[in-house]
């Protein structure tokens, strides 16, 4: 038997909403029923009615979800007040227990609109049939009842001012319920604000998105999570804050170290009180990695460099050394001079679509069964096809969420892939040479070149 709850969401990153809810209900281990009618799931609208087993589950979701603003026990809704009152009366058994002696407060508000005070009062009066006998208490009420009008969006008139109260009463739906919890995790966006962080770089991920990514990993105490493109550690802080133990690696140790003796990532993690959960940071190339075995991590979370501000690199040379130069190099390695600078191995560019395929293969090896790979993939909006994502999969790895953050001509997709098998794989052999191009060419291939061409075609 499920109880319906009304969720009010922040209107940001709407494609991330349902995946986040599903991830969190899985992490907490309870069922969540979405509305059957796809129109009632429309993430561009701020309200969603969800079936849950109990109020505690609604509170848990509100405590961890980044996109939930508030949660209400659902009493009724309709496209007119008549419809609303009818469904509210039918749900009398939900609120009858508050009639005799419960102090309450009544909120009337609207999304996309401000209701004139006079009409607000009329709306409150129209609920008088509920016959609540408790006193009205605006400061410390026992319960808060809330009535929301969802007004039609005025997107077509973007940037123009409306007359005061223009369109008042023209709402799409009106909802009514009892407040259960306010979304407390949204304040983490301010807490993890990159500008207030003691260490960050020009590729650091914004706080809200990194928190959404952390929720996709199901991060919680005791979990072990790995970021193979650690950079300045943006995803490590929220995942560690949620209790997970973090391993990080990067081909360029300078990103993780910053200036000074204490690595920059440790300084920032100390600021958030999670330094002990950053288990270790290592410098290596994921195509030549030192992990002794697989089946290690509960999740892999990463934002691979896609070449606009920083390009991905791997060990090797663009052009092989000539035999003479190779001999000279080997001789030099065998008997280095005492005043030599530390040796820094050469690197070559790592093309994004190759990297994505390799990352999925490596994750299949390193993840525990049921473990998740959560990462961002940039893509060209006009060229993107769903097969771009599916063509980088390998057997045993399945896409469970794919949410777009749209920047106009390009965007990036947060992809969540789950290891669905209990098979132990051998470490993947990353091919040194580019594969022959007989396969599907995804839109994110050569993303850097396309970006700097302004996404125009070559001709």
């Amino acid at each position, binding site marked *: 038997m499920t109880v319906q709850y009304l969720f009010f969401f922040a209107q940001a990153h709407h494609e991330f909403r349902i995946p986040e809810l599903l991830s969190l209900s899985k992490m907490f281990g309870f069922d969540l029923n979405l509305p059957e009618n796809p129109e009632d799931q429309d993430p561009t609208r701020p309200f969603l009615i969800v079936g849950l087993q109990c109020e505690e589950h609604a509170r848990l979701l509100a405590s961890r979800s980044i996109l939930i603003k508030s949660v209400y026990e659902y009493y009724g809704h309709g496209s007119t007040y008549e419809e609303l009152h009818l469904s509210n009366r039918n749900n009398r058994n939900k609120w009858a227990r508050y009639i005799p002696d419960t102090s309450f407060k009544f909120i009337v508000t609207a999304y996309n609109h401000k209701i004139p005070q006079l009409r607000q009062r009329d709306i409150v009066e129209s609920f008088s049939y509920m016959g609540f006998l408790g006193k009205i208490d605006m400061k410390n009420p026992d319960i808060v009842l809330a009535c929301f009008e969802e007004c039609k969006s005025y997107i077509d008139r973007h940037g123009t001012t409306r007359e005061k109260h223009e369109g008042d009463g023209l709402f799409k739906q009106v909802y009514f319920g009892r407040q259960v919890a306010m979304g407390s995790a949204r304040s983490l966006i301010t807490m993890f604000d990159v500008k207030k962080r003691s260490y960050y770089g020009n590729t650091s991920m914004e706080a809200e998105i990194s928190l959404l990514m952390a929720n996709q990993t199901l991060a919680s105490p005791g979990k072990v999570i790995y970021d193979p493109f650690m950079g300045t550690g943006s995803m490590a802080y929220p995942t560690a804050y949620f209790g997970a133990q973090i391993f990080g*690696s990067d081909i360029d140790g300078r990103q993780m170290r910053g200036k000074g003796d204490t*690595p920059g990532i440790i300084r920032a993690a100390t600021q958030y009180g999670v330094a002990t959960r950053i288990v270790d940071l290592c410098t290596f190339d994921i195509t030549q990695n030192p992990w002794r075995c697989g089946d290690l991590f509960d999740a892999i979370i990463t934002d691979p460099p896609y070449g606009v501000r920083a390009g991905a690199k791997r060990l090797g040379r663009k052009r092989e050394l000539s035999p003479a130069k190779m001999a000279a190099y080997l001789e030099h390695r065998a008997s280095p001079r005492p005043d030599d600078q530390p040796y820094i191995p050469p690197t070559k560019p790592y093309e994004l679509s190759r990297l994505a395929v390799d990352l999925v293969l490596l994750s299949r090896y390193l993840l525990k069964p049921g473990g998740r790979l959560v990462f961002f993939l940039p893509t060209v909006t006009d060229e993107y096809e769903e097969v771009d994502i599916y063509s980088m999969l390998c057997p045993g790895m399945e896409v469970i969420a794919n949410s777009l953050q749209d920047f106009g001509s390009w965007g990036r997709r947060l992809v969540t892939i789950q290891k669905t098998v209990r098979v132990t794989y051998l470490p993947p052999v990353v091919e040194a040479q580019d594969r022959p191009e007989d396969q599907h060419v995804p839109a994110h291939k050569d993303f850097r070149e396309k970006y700097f061409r302004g996404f125009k075609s070559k001709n």
Partner: protein
Amino acid sequence: MVRLITHNLLACHVKGCTSNNFPLEFKDVQVELRDAEFNSDFLRGFIPKIEWKALVDAARQVGNTSLPLELPEMLDDDFLKSLHHVLLEIHVEEGSMTCPNCHHVYPISNGIPNMLLAEHEIG
């Protein structure tokens, strides 16, 4: 950092170095001890992944002899406490790790090991 948990997961990965490439030997290490949160579920979940002898040897190399030579069958609280200390609270900040097979030296500086390979060592 370079906690012993990480040391237990890193093997030499130089091209062709596939046997006797684990565990890496600590050399000239500077060790620091730092408290970490105790989580018995995490430890129990991680035990199957541990190469026990390598962990005991590494702990001895950095001066800790609290672990038994064999992994006990009964995981009592005292044992989990010492395991927690060895895995998560001993940090090797400086020094190096050397492959027993190919003798590649992986230097550690400010707690971050450099596991990059030279160009003749990659596959």
